[in-house]
């Protein structure tokens, strides 16, 4: 449900960093316990990016594992070895089993985010930029002479 608004926020962030250049690729990190379904983001992105400089850009998703920290011994464990199991189930199991030190005083400390790592943009070569600028100038001239 909320993927639509989160995709719009992602698109706005990308366009804000692209400085008017065409975006070809967007690199994203999605925590296994985030609230984001990559397939939904892709679906909405295709729709929302129409007519923007990000239209047609490819989304790359990197999945980040769940990280649990023991508040007693400080040990941090990520649950990437268990990646074949459903993430919510492995988190519940890990919390129930507790830390190696015997403590059950654990806290979820990672794998909940949705972050943009980088963008790739097309930089027009000097010749292309000049030709485009010249084209605009001529267009303007033509319009003013038409008036």
């Amino acid at each position: 449900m909320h993927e639509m608004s989160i995709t719009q926020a992602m698109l706005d962030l990308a366009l804000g960093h692209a400085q008017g250049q065409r975006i070809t690729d967007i690199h994203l990190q999605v925590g296994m316990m985030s609230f984001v379904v990559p397939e939904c983001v892709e679906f909405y992105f295709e729709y929302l990016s129409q007519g923007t400089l990000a239209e047609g850009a490819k989304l790359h998703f990197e999945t980040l594992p769940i990280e649990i920290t023991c508040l007693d011994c400080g040990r941090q464990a990520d649950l990437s070895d268990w990646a074949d199991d459903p993430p919510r189930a492995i988190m519940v199991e890990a919390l129930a089993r507790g830390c190696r030190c015997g403590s059950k005083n654990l806290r979820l400390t990672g794998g909940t985010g949705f972050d943009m790592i980088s963008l790739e943009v097309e930089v027009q070569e000097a010749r292309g930029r000049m030709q485009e600028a010249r084209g605009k100038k001529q267009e303007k001239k033509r319009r003013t002479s038409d008036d």
Partner: protein
Amino acid sequence: MVKIPVLKSITEANALLAAALRARFAQQDVLVLNFIASPGAGKTTLLERTIEKLNGELRLSVIEGDPTTSLDSERIFAAGVPVVQINTDGGCHLEARMIQAALEQLDVEDADVVIIENVGNLLCPTGWDLGEDAKVVIASLPEGDDKPLKYPMAFATAQAVVINKIDLEPYLPAKVSVLRQNALQINPHLAVFEVSALTGQGLDGWVDWIWEKLAEKRESRCTKCP
């Protein structure tokens, strides 16, 4: 081709606004609770009973979040408490910008406690910080005692869980003790209250917790700040 580093959370805009709201609430010395629960868990009834218990002693304000209608805010208004209704028009959770807009219609300057009743949903609201001091999950027994295991994020990010409708235990296969145990398995730091908002059973402990959180906030206030 040029690579531009971004390294930003997609929900940063919400996080920044939530931090600003938190600073504003701290300056106004008001405790803010974010109620998260499934539809029908008894959020509004618990709110009504909480108002009855605290009114006259603490000044409350309420922000109601629902997909549509002002049914809930009418109930709170009838209980004699300032209230603003947010309709998300189908949206599944409240966001910090909605709280900011609600505060334009709700004067919390003189309030002691602001309670935000989030949209009935055990999943999405946990992902959006509203600038609250604590998230409170209301889990009613008829929903089943396995909900902490199936929706762990709500319980992992909350400070308290109110187990509601305990008066129905004799008629249900779900057990209060199992629900409590499952919640504590996800988050051993949870304060757990067993209540029936309908009969009033167990509400004193819950109300005492609100007093404690308020005292904690006010006593920990930076004395150097204006």
